[in-house]
């Protein structure tokens, strides 16, 4: 789909935030903002849907907890019961306090690792992937706001100029 977009460059996150709010207010569609670092509150200003990664994190945590319980039950109770420190491994519940650290650690382990993997998959990131950002300066000290052009192109350009953009490019995508 060939469409025309405008790349507006900023060199300060506060100015960027103001500009994003201004562009949103004039009902222009911001395709994407490329940043060298996460800008706090930018997702809200752009009107992005709230992240659901916290929900997946909770589910992964629950999964980790279940894995820990099933695993310790198999290892320590069913497969090879041992009498450690005068506490014979007859039932899971009697030995449960000894397994709590493992339950805790696996909950954290699953939540953390699977959340990162989910994030990579969802952002379509994988090793050796070619970078999508339009300008290498967005990995250093510049922010780029990508706006779709509909109708009044000149009005949008002047507004961006006024919003503190340091550079504005028209790009065919």
């Amino acid at each position: 789909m060939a469409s025309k977009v405008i790349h507006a460059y900023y060199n300060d996150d506060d100015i960027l935030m103001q500009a994003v709010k201004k562009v949103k207010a004039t009902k222009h569609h911001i395709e994407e903002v490329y940043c060298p670092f996460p800008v706090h509150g930018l997702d809200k200003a752009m009107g992005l849907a709230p992240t659901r990664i916290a929900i997946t994190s909770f589910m992964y945590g629950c999964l980790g907890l279940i894995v820990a319980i099933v695993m310790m039950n198999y290892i320590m109770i069913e497969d090879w019961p041992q009498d450690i420190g005068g506490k014979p491994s007859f039932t899971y519940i009697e030995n449960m306090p000894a397994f709590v650290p493992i339950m805790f650690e696996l909950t954290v382990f699953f939540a953390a690792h699977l959340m990162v993997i989910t994030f990579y998959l969802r952002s379509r990131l994988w090793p050796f992937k070619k970078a999508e950002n339009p300008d290498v300066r967005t990995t250093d000290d510049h922010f780029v706001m990508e706006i779709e052009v509909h109708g009044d192109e000149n009005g949008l350009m002047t507004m961006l100029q006024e919003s503190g953009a340091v550079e504005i490019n028209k790009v065919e995508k």
Partner: protein
Amino acid sequence: MYTFSNRLKIGAIVLMALGIVGMGVGFVSVPSTPEEAKAMVAAHDDGHGDSHAEEGEHLAEDTAHAGTADHDAAHDEHLMHQLQNRPWSAVYVAAFFFFMIALGVLAFYAIQRAAQAGWSPLLFRVMEGITAYLVPGGIAVFVLLVLSVMHFNHMFVWMDADVVAEDALLQGKAGYLNPTFFLIRAAIFLGGWILYREVSRRLSLAQDEASDNRNFVKNFRWSAGFLVFYLVTESMMSWDWIMSVDPHWFSTLFGWYVFASMMVSGITVIAMITIYLKSKGYLPDVNDSHIHDLAKFMFGFSIFWTYLWFSQFMLIWYANIPEEVTYFVTRIEDYKLPFFGMVALNFVFPLLLLMNSDYKRINWFVVMTGIVILAGHYIDVFNMVMPGTVGDQWSIGIPELGAVCFFAGAFILWVFRALTKVPLQPKRNPFIEESRHFHY
């Protein structure tokens, strides 16, 4: 300026009056002879034996009954002492609980000062208001300790010279655990904490009128110094005032455990009072993000508390050394419901209720969770003190609730009176702008 609403004031005074009645009933109804004590416990069993049948308490009572025939006088006397201890312990637990809230807030406040936190200066006056209770609360606890030393009660058995004479372990500890040194230590702890509180409050108020930041910098230094003093003295205080009710038993992380409890209760009270003041139209600049941050601390410290609770439990459970494990054996046998119930109140509830980011911003949600947390941590103190003082003769009845009402009333009265004295918002704190724009 905040004005103390009449309704709240009357409410607090009514609470105190009810509390005095409750505590009075508790003190009047103690047995004065071993026979009376025996009769009281027997009457209690007749009345409640059936209804308690399912709670497992019945079993314990039955075994106690089986021995009735060869009950010796020593046992009856022990029972009498336990029953006599009950109203004292009830008062002591409640007094310590509310004192602990003020002390926890003081530590939290000092951390904010020492860290030069930017989000919290709007809440400093609220925190200073709560720490004002350190003086009356500290005096109440100190008076109770003095009365214990003077043998008005038998909460601390090591204070009894006859007991020590027959106990090699207590003789070994007598160099540290003796009444004189005990009171000297208590005076040093309280003196140091109150001194810091007063100095910091004065500097905080002076900063509002000053033309430079000298007072602010001084306050930073005092706070950093106080935290060092506090971490040492808080730990020793928890050994002295709480752990020594079980003088044979010891735990090396006990100080941390009590610390976690006081921090989470303190932060909860800051959140609740802030929300209350906001609901009355004060503190206009405090926004959802401040509440959110406090709720995050409530959540975090609840988990920290559980971590320490479990660490203490698991090591002792695993090692299974008789001298150590008795602590948990008494609690699990005689205090099953409060002991495990508090884990639900202090861990499961805050974990599930405050996990969601959005819920941390809903004021009534934070208040409801706060009530659960405070109840849970009262029971925590209860579980720490009662098994050593009243044994299996515990109950949460009129003396306990009366004592809680009394100290809650005194706490509200004192804290809100302190809040009326100065404007609720600091003027010239260098971080006040940052705090006002604090946004998560």
